């Protein structure tokens, strides 16, 4: 994917760029808000990663300019630790996702790939299908190889999220935020327990495991290759 990083801290930007290039992305860097704005308008990017705290132009102001100029590129906002009001402000200004510094690189990679645009039909599809696993969003039913799987409402949501982000890593925090709407980090392993129950229901008795754990990052649901 082609990414734009707008980040004023030289070390941070270099480190970010290296990690993203290592992960197979093409990365452009902008050190100031103006430069970022210019690049965002002139090039086509899959995802923009924007630091909220920038010299000269505030990150939010840049975000608003990008959105008012009609640019719909998915944008991930990076902010400093602890600002509990920042998330709402960022999302209201037009960010698509939000990550608090400091973060694990795996988290950023997962979120960037989750943000990359999917074919529009995929978003609106009423049924999701990965391999022999089928999820009907309207009937709220799940089948695997034609066999019905009974899921709790929350497990259904979990599976739906995984299937919508199929072949991509989904982190614990992403699940907490989008499935439970928990914007804090519980000390209890609630994601792990729910996931292990979901996996038991989806994968038990099947030769092909669809859901796998990605060590140090999260989970990934992928069909047979």
């Amino acid at each position, binding site marked *: 994917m082609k990414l734009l990083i707008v980040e004023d801290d030289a070390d941070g930007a270099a480190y970010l760029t290296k990690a993203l290039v290592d992960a197979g992305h093409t990365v452009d860097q902008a050190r100031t808000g103006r430069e970022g704005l210019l690049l965002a308008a002139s090039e086509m990017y899959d995802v923009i990663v924007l630091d909220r705290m920038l010299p000269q132009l505030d990150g939010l102001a840049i975000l608003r300019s990008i959105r008012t100029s009609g640019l719909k590129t998915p944008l991930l906002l990076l902010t400093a*630790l*602890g*600002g*509990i*009001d920042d998330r*709402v402000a960022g999302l209201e200004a037009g960010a698509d996702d939000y990550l*608090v510094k*400091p973060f694990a690189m795996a988290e950023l990679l997962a979120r960037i790939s989750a943000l990359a645009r999917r074919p529009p039909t995929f978003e609106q599809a009423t049924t999701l299908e990965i391999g022999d696993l089928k999820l009907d969003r309207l009937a709220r039913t799940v089948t695997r190889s034609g066999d019905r799987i009974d899921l709790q409402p*929350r497990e259904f949501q979990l599976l739906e999220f995984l299937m919508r982000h199929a072949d991509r890593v989904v982190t614990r925090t992403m699940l907490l935020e989008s499935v*439970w*709407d*928990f*914007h*804090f*980090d*519980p*000390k*209890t*392993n*609630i994601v*792990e*327990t*729910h996931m292990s*129950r979901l996996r038991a229901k989806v994968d038990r008795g099947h030769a092909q495991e669809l859901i796998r754990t990605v060590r140090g990052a999260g989970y990934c649901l992928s069909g047979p290759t």
Partner: protein
Amino acid sequence: MPRNSFARFAAPAIVSAGRPEVLRSTSARLTALYTAGFALSVLVLGAITLLSTHSALRHQVDRRVRSESQALAQEFRTKGLASVVQSVLEREQARAALDYGLDSPQSQPLAGRLAGFHPPVGWSVLQMKEQDGDIEPVRAFTTRLPGGYRLIVGDAVKRTAGIEMIILQGFGWAFAGVVAIGLIGGYHFTRNVGRRLTNMTAAADAIIQGDLNRRIPVEGAGDDLDRLAGVFNLTLDRISSLMDSLRQVSNDIAHDLRTPLTRLRQRLETIPRLRRPVEQEEAIEGALRDVDAILATFSALLRIAQVGGGTRRAAFRPVDLKDLGLTVVEAFAPSAEDAGQALSFEGDVQAPIIGDAELLTQLLANLVENSLRHAGGHARVVVRTWRGDTACGVCVSDDGPGVPAGERERIFDRFYRLERSRSTPGDGLGLALVAAIARLHDAEIALGDGDQGLEVSVAFAAAQPH
């Protein structure tokens, strides 16, 4: 805090030049304005009264003079000259009598003090000489009688002037009184208000100089100045509690992050000495865990501070405690089950309040996690929401060992941990955040006083139905 930056703001309060303090105050100006206004209205009122009295008196005198003239003319026609002469002489002797005069056709004075002046017929003013030689003006009416006789009836101008003088004097005194009362009252009023404002200014100056514990004196009169002082004091309370929480956070960070940071440093130091890659990898992972723990503590501290700051109130919305309770129980129940514990929810009615759903969810999660962590192996934890007439609440209870009575209040302090929990994981901030979130919502936290288990209830004001 740099003192200099305060001095700039303090400066205008200290500068005072020219007129004395009391005259430059708002109250002095207002009193002066009101006094002047009242004095002016007394003047206008006096002038109007004087004019109307003057015209009324003259009208009255004129009527009396005319009717006397008519009566005497009538007498002249019916009873003749002798009778009128007699009447004039008699009437002049009466008390507060009018003045009379009767002239013959040859302009010879016949009777009365006004005879011999030869005034024209109708109204005129005669200058009459008094016995003591003074000239006294008389307003007189002259009637022509049959046969060329002239009858003059008049009244001394002095008499109405006297009444007018009395009125004038009355208003003069009233004017002086208004001015005097205005000045004296204004002086006292200004001095009183000025004294209180000076006290306020002094208190504010002291606060600017850094004495954040000073408060503006409240006199107890319940007036606007007291209300102003009250509001100021509330503001100051708020500022000082914010300063306290800031100071607290700095102290907490300084003291409680030092230990894990030291541990992290030691771990990192050992890595180069480790020979086997597996050991190195383990050490690095351990270091990452340390960093994450430090960041989590840091983030929790900041969150507590931000919640304490109160800015989140702007984002309050109607939320239902029952919904939140269900979500939290449903999220944590599988983990509890796996650990051999039981987490259940009780609550059959909606419990609507106004608050921050995100923070309230965290409050519930922290209470549940606290119980799950400290209540032991086979603990049963119950989350119950309830609704009363004016309050709604949530209660999290467990059947674990509970908290000793003496330590109950302290479990909500930052980093406070019971002696026996020191070995269990936890940063000692979960309940501190619960307390902060409850305070933000003006909710009351109560701890159950039973011997068994821990019971934490949080009561909120119920949302008013629309």
